[in-house]
């Protein structure tokens, strides 16, 4: 059972899912002879950037109305992060310490370490005993950061823990960010995967916007639209003033120019159609809800199966965690048993991809957990 997918959605049958709205968009594009292969601008497809911005900040966002938000098409979420980190290295006047959650997506550290001018730091995030966000420890660390440091936050469906701050927690986090004048970068790879409703999932970002804070959002369309290999993403920046935002955009373009000149058009056109075409938009929203629902079902199957098998421990976190992943709480040794003895492939951190769990294998998975816990204990 493959539960170590990484961020890739799978259907109940364990297959990748090309969203019907994406197929339709591709059909439309293939038969449209008015479209050519000319270069996009450095900032990419404008219709995508605009729609992506409204998706993140809200249709009637005052920030957009005040022209304080700018967006640039990127090579998926990784590409957005790269440009963002390059911006911090080349143009940001503040402290180049970048605080990342412990734990976080592995590539965050790799990317930051690759840029000599940036310093990778961590803030505590996950309390393994209570299996919740240790927001007090997190805020204490951020409070001790140098003024003007940079902090990377997962907007929703935290990878790898699946545990998100509550609204109350976000208020505390925002307060310390404001107090220390931290530059905030939101990693937004899973919009809609937490609650099924992207407006709900974007709450943290919109809250920071309402407070008048400046921040970046590194957005990926890989998971939320199933576009993975087409590499579609966006880098947003919300500035204190319109002038600042637009200056930032022109600096971001300078960075893009010497990396790849302009971004790929095909995936962007698909995403733009799915967001802007009324019928495709409705279909896409349903697809997103379906992906979210399937993952919630998988969580329920596993939770129920764990209870039925009387597996020792409290497994409620399987239900309360959000998004594609679950930090099971299994130890490295227990994971090794799962992998070697039961052929359940997960990360040794205990992270499983919920897409690997189905109604038919949940029992097997639960019983394997039980055996792993008992066997590893004996060792």
């Amino acid at each position, binding site marked *: 059972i493959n539960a170590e997918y990484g961020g890739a959605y799978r259907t109940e049958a364990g297959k990748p899912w090309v969203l019907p709205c994406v197929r339709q968009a591709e059909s439309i594009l293939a038969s449209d002879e008015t479209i050519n*292969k*000319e*270069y*996009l601008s450095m900032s990419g497809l404008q219709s995508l950037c605009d729609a992506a911005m409204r998706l993140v900040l809200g249709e009637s966002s005052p920030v957009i109305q005040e022209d304080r938000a700018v967006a640039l098409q*990127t*090579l*998926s979420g*990784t*590409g957005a992060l*790269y440009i963002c980190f390059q911006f911090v290295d080349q143009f940001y006047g503040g402290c180049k310490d970048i605080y990342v959650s412990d734990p976080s997506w592995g*590539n965050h550290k*790799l*990317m930051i370490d*690759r840029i000599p001018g940036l310093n990778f730091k961590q803030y505590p995030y996950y309390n393994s005993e209570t299996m919740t966000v240790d927001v007090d420890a997190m805020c204490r660390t951020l409070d001790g950061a140098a003024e003007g440091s940079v902090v990377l936050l997962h907007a929703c469906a935290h990878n790898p823990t699946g545990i998100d701050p509550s609204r109350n927690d976000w208020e505390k986090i925002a307060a310390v960010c404001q107090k220390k004048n931290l530059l905030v970068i939101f990693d937004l790879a899973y919009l809609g995967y937490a609650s099924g409703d992207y407006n709900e999932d974007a709450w943290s970002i919109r809250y920071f916007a309402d407070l008048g804070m400046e921040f970046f959002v590194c957005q990926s369309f890989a998971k939320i639209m199933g576009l993975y*290999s*087409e*590499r579609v993403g966006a880098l947003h920046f919300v500035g204190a003033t319109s002038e600042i935002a637009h200056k930032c955009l022109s600096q971001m373009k*300078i*960075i893009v*120019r*010497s*990396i*790849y*000149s*302009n*971004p*790929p*058009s*095909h*995936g962007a056109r698909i995403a733009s159609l799915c967001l802007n075409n009324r019928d495709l938009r409705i279909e896409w929203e349903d697809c997103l809800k379906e992906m979210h629902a399937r993952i919630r079902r998988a969580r329920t199957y596993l939770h129920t199966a764990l209870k039925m098998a009387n597996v020792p421990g409290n497994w409620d976190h399987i239900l309360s965690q959000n998004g594609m992943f679950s930090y099971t709480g299994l130890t490295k040794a227990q994971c090794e048993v799962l992998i070697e003895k039961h052929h359940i492939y997960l990360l040794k951190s205990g992270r499983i991809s919920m897409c690997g769990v189905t109604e038919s294998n949940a029992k097997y998975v639960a019983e394997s957990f039980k055996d792993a816990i008992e066997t590893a204990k004996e060792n």
Partner: protein
Amino acid sequence: KQWYQRRVRDSVAVTENLVASTQTISGTGALRIGGEFIKKFHSSETIYLPTPSWGNHTPIFRDSGLEVKSYTYYKKDTKGLDFQGMLSDISQIEEGATILLHACAHNPTGVDPSPEQWNEISQVVKSRNLLVLIDMAYQGFASGNLEKDAYAVRKFTEDGHRILLAQSFAKNMGVYGERCGAFSIVGESESEAAALESQIKIVVRPMYSSPALHAARLVGTVLNDPALYAQWLVDVKGMADRIISMREALKSGLEKEGSEHNWDHLVNQIGMFCFTGMTPEQVARLTEEFSVYLTKDGRISVAGVSSRNVEYLAHAMHTVTK
């Protein structure tokens, strides 16, 4: 992977699996990966570009952390290659530095070395033990013949240079905005090539993880399907032929206007761009009086010339240069 290797088809390097390749975000992406790779692994951090070169070369390599220097290339008087100057400069480059060469259809001048000149350049480069990065954005587009346009790449590989190659499919496949290119390194052995490939991936991963698939599928399909490939050869030749015929039409148009200048360089230069030799003042007049838009250095994009406007252009150019 196989389809990049077709571009250096029949060479020993490919048959012995010595080439490490990766798909890139078009030519720019390939050059940036090249720059980052050189910075990370090569002993020298200096790269030499021809004067002039594509405007974006300097920021790409500078942002990769390299020091950018230059070597003589274009001769204003002849509007051709300053071959002696080029050889002289190259022979003084410090050993082990990197030299960037345009494989064909030099951008912005349109001035390319002849095969005999390439042979000599290869020897001088070898004598200085330079690392060679070849920028090939116009294969097929220059002469209309893929093999001919790849002469420098093949010669250098044959001569034993372990080249770095940045390819773009933007122009020769017309896929511009899809961003399709490739970065390759010729290794010394099969196992070195494998090691190189994994190191290239390590360079790419923190930048954008992986390139856009659609572009690769498009180009890969054309390159690997015999019928489509044959069609492509015809299409590329068609594009190149149109450019060549516009060059000829412009030259004869100027002669018809009674111009006394030597316009041989219009047809001797090759590829999309043409360094006309016009001064900034003449260029300004062209723009103001005739609504002809070109860069201040007198460079025209021959792609902008068609049978509908070539007479007008010849008349305009004659008027400002007579």
